[in-house]
């Protein structure tokens, strides 16, 4: 190979690789978008046993379609999408637990000691064979894309997949709580695990009528801030989801 050729290859090979990468990456994204679309319209086959519960049987959310300007689809398919995603999330996390064992025999033994029967364990192992478990970061990116497309329930999924101790998890939980009673219930029941600062803690404690916590926090917080937070919490109760998002942008709460 002469020098000229070598130079050309040296120069253009990395560029060619980059182009191929960008193109394939783009294809993946398009594929992802398609799957999101199918999920929304209920066409996608996830290969995962989904919830048998119908949307109407699940806990109702206070989401008001009129307040979500970006959503141009009926609410029910979105909620169905959400329930399906949630069941899929459980399934993949469960499969993570199967795959977290380096030794299948040890896993079987462990399950048997907790009272499971062999057939059930064997079935779980088979179900999870070949299942790829995405990490939370990858899932977050996916749902953030979905949220940008106007699927408000993606916000609830973001709140579900990110542990509330991380500021990322807290952020999405707060955002989803503007419209989802389920998110608000999650905050209520796992209050101590959410990475709230004192102001946020006071704000949600007031909304959730946790009087003991409110009284405790009152001792440490400057009175002007305290009253402002209480006022915001009172306003929250009579606000629309859109107005609540504005409240969450308040200097004391965000």
């Amino acid at each position: 190979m002469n020098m000229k050729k070598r130079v050309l290859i040296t120069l253009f090979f990395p560029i060619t690789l980059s182009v191929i990468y960008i193109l394939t990456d783009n294809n993946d994204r398009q594929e992802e978008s398609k799957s999101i679309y199918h999920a929304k319209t209920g066409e996608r086959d996830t290969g995962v046993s989904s919830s048998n519960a119908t949307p109407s049987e699940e806990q109702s959310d206070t989401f008001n379609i009129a307040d979500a300007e970006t959503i141009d689809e009926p609410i029910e398919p979105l909620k169905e999408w959400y329930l399906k995603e949630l069941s899929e999330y459980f399934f993949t996390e469960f499969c993570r637990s199967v795959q977290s064992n380096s030794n299948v025999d040890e896993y079987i033994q462990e399950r048997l000691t907790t009272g499971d029967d062999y057939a059930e364990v064997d079935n779980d192992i088979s179900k999870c064979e070949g299942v790829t478990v995405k990490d939370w970061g990858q899932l977050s990116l996916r749902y953030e894309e979905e949220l940008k497309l106007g699927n408000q329930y993606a916000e609830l999924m973001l709140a579900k997949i990110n542990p509330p101790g991380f500021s990322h998890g807290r952020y999405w939980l707060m955002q989803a709580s503007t419209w989802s009673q389920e998110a608000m219930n999650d905050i209520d029941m796992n209050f101590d695990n959410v990475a709230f600062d004192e102001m946020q803690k006071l704000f949600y404690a007031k909304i959730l009528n946790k009087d003991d916590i409110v009284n405790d926090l009152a001792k440490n917080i400057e009175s002007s801030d305290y009253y402002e937070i209480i006022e915001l919490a009172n306003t929250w109760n009579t606000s629309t989801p859109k107005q609540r998002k504005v409240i969450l942008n308040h200097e004391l709460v965000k």
Partner: protein
Amino acid sequence: MKNYNTIKYLAILVMVSPSVHSSTFEQIPLTEYSCKPNGQTVKWNDTSSWFSLAAITNTIFKRGCKYAQRQIRGSYIDDVEVIRGSLDLSILPGPIGCQSRSEVPMSVVGSHMPTSENWFIPTQINFKADTYTISANTPYELHQKDQSKRGTNRLDKWYSQWIISPSDPSFGNEKAPNVINGRKNGHSNTGPMTFSIDNNPKTYQVLSNMSRGTREYSFSIGGSIGSDFTGNINMDWPSAKINGEKCYATTLYKIKVERNAKPTIHSIVKNASNLTASATDKHTADSYLSYTWEVTDINNRKHYKTGKTISLSGISGNYYSAIVTVSDGNMSSSLKKIFETAPPRPIDVRPCPTCQIP
């Protein structure tokens, strides 16, 4: 050579910092350290990354506070005893600069509370620092703590880097510190080891490709706070009282990275109309674990929920089974429990054939 490169690298770190005049910074060779106020030159033999970092860090503060034209609050600089081959750097657990420790330090969130310990005490150096133990491939997050009110977005510029400590046994006798990832700007949000705490909710990162067993890493975070070299300070931080000063904050931690282990689920407890799972993880604190549930009711209807505690409202019947999966973001464990509340038994009113009526 590697030692020298690391120092050179760290020197670049300082030079490129917008808060330090690059023209006033001189490259410091490893074996000569001349930042003692009286100008005495100090030499040492230790080549650890920690020692190097500490020295560089100390230089940053001195230079920063020189511009501040005011004596640094606290006793940081004065505490540095620079004697040939001996340096007491017990100053390192907290930030060094113009703030007191409670105003600036960062913490590695996701891990359990750090333990403070004396460590890395060879012949001449005494360090004391917070030690976090985390595991590879699980998310962690950096926070500034003890902020009086809100947020984690107080450092306007900050940098971080990972360095493999030479105490890492997998490196055998190699003494040179090994920079893993280089300087990362806290404002960027791309690539691994890059953190963003400025209004971006995506804050956690995963320390990956370090799963070759237990290793020790050093981790430094440095940055400038609210300073623009003109004395204009971000007044959104009144508690720092840094108006007119150049302030620098650097925190040095010891991070122990271990091979990950899956969480242990101890129990699922029913309380009123809730279910609560109890789990522990060696490396991950409770709030940073993910809990996902599948509850199957008597009609074989499945309900999916998340959170350490879930509500059973909407789940009918007196029999149900619950599977909880607890994950640290890398490994999971599952536990199943069946709950059955027997329906009240009807009162048996049939005559008793064997009973004798008195």
